[in-house]
């Protein structure tokens, strides 16, 4: 099953490699990983998407908690949450297909953010599933390249992982 693990970690050099190293050393799979500092500059927030049986996820959570730099973490799959991912997708356009691609982007609430005579770059956010759906929907056109941030998310409600 897919799990989104949201980690609050000390914003120190090497913290990311501790997490990445743990996954490779123990043979866990990382589907995506995003990390950036938070409003508190001493803390980074990391969102990691992984798949595994309940036993494996339990070990992943415990092993992550064991890292000295990890302050707190939560498995978003356990709670009601909001999930978003950002995608930039560059599509080759023909005079005959430009209108259709633009329409398709509109349907998915994407924005065209760069235009040339024969390409569009479309910006889109949403759940990873929605982005997958858009990619599938325009796959009849020539996709030049795609970049995705991987999922991030927060639990719904007023609560917070940040201690104190």
């Amino acid at each position, binding site marked *: 099953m897919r799990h989104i693990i949201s980690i609050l970690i000390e914003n120190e050099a090497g913290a990311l*490699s501790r997490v990445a190293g743990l996954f490779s050393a123990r043979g866990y799979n990382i589907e995506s990983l995003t990390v950036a500092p938070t409003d508190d500059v001493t803390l980074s927030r990391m969102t990691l998407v992984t798949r595994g049986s309940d036993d494996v996820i339990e070990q992943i959570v*415990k*092993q992550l*908690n*064991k890292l*000295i*730099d*990890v*302050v707190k973490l939560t498995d978003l799959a356990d709670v009601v949450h909001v999930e978003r991912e950002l995608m930039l997708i560059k599509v080759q356009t023909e005079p005959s297909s430009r209108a259709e691609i633009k329409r398709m982007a509109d349907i998915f609430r994407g924005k065209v953010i760069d235009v040339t005579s024969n390409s569009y770059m479309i910006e889109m956010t949403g759940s990873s599933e929605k982005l997958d759906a858009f990619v599938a929907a325009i796959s009849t056109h020539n996709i030049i390249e795609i970049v995705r941030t991987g999922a991030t998310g927060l639990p719904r409600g007023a609560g917070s992982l940040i201690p104190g």
Partner: protein
Amino acid sequence: MELSGGQIVVQCLKDEGVELLFGYPGGAVLHLYDAIFQQDDVQHILVRHEQAATHAADAYARATGKPGVVLVTSGPGATNAVTGIATAYMDSIPLVVISGQVPSAVIGSDAFQEVDMVGITRPCVKHNFLVKNVADIAETMKKAFHVATTGRPGPVVVDIPKDITDPNVKVPYVYPETVNMRSYEPPREGDQRQVQKAVDLLLSAKRPMIYSGGGVVLGEASDELRAFSRQLGYPVTSTLMGLGAFPATDSQFIGMLGMHGTYESNMGMHESDVIIAIGARFDDRVTGKLTEFCPYAKIIHIDIDPASIAKTVKVDVPIVGEVGIVLKQLSAEINASSSRIDTEALAAWWDQIKEWQSVNCLEYDRESALIKPQYAVEQLYKVTAGNAFITSDVGQHQMYAAQFYPFDEPRRWINSGGLGTMGFGLPAAIGVKLAHPDADVACITGEASIQMCIQELSTAQQYQTPVKIINLNNRYMGMVRQWQEFSYQGRYSHSYLEALPDFVKLAEAYGHVGMRIEKPEDVTPALEEAFAMKDRTVFLDIITDQKENVYPMIEAGKGHHDMRLRVAPGTPIDRELA
């Protein structure tokens, strides 16, 4: 007080109460060594290879409960230390390893003797630090000792670039009294509801087993384990790492469990209905085939590390906490409980265990004209009255030591259990002897293992650490040979050691006493003579039976009840086998 970085490191060690520092100098730590030269409080032990520094410091920690401290230079000094760091990591030994690093300005430029020590050690340390400012040294050192020694202990590396220890840059020094780490808070008490559940289960048991591990030794919970076990009267077995936490000569102790554990312990585990694992981690050498592990048992597991729980074996009652505290909670709860031990069932269980014990699974050929390694260890036990600190290397001799030298006290048995590091024994013995100068210290080793750190005979001479080296010399990597006999139809691929040195002359060349013992009747007198030489390191090269194997053995992929015994239960020992 204004101090340079080098002086601060040394002052931190003093403020931590460090007495011994094991190390080897080099370019990146010259400032540090200069600071060491100008003081007398911290004694530096110069080893002959950085691996030995880590093993000696590790064994010092195992024998005393205090953290071991190591100082190595950058590059090869640091990488040489890695095996010892990994050894300490696998056995959860508190170690602080200070490594020099190239100057900050050239980090990342492939400078001379540069290696990414923080990166290299990341998977085999509890934590590591790269110090980037002189002003950060004291706090980092405080954190390093705190992390290494609390919770589940482990090695911590502090990597310090050369410019940070520059004698010309001085900053005010204050050693912090407390550590503030929001991300690190080891557990202490166990959850009382879980303790209650555990007690209910323990008191309902018909065929209980107490399975004790290295966590009891590390957690200084030997007294609590003894009190708890005696309160219940249940059979006690131990992992390799836990030996000594419960007295091995006590009738309640039924021997080590696992791959080379006793028949009674392994059968007991297999047939048990309630097992309490105390500071043990269900290592693969203990469990054998997981799907056949303890098929009838409900399992209680006490561990300070939540990640140890349910890692390989599902447990029914997990209790996260310090073993000593949790055992006290359990003892109190047993006293308060209205339930009582089923004494009738327990008596029947002990009868069953005694029947298994009558198999005499450790018996060997005592009439042999060749020296049996088991015999040599038994005689060592007698000559030292069971009071010695025993270090070992890795292989058959390690198992013979564990089987034939019953430890009645914790911290006496010092071996690399998790990583299985050959070369551990001799530097470990030196570390133990420095910690306990008045105690008998013996290194049980083999002719293969001893050669992996033999250069430390020189360190033993320099610091006058009179240890006794019991070299069980069968001219083979014995455990490799045994597996090749059992699983590869006797194709002894590269396990025979040709061109062995003359160990007697080698010992003498290093300034020690060497003895070669070839007959069983000479073993005891030689040991007596060796231990009578209180101020000499003695190398006893004991020529043993080449074909002897370690029994019992649970071969790879088999369950606890599926042991390979020397002889089938009930038959007298067959002389022809020997």
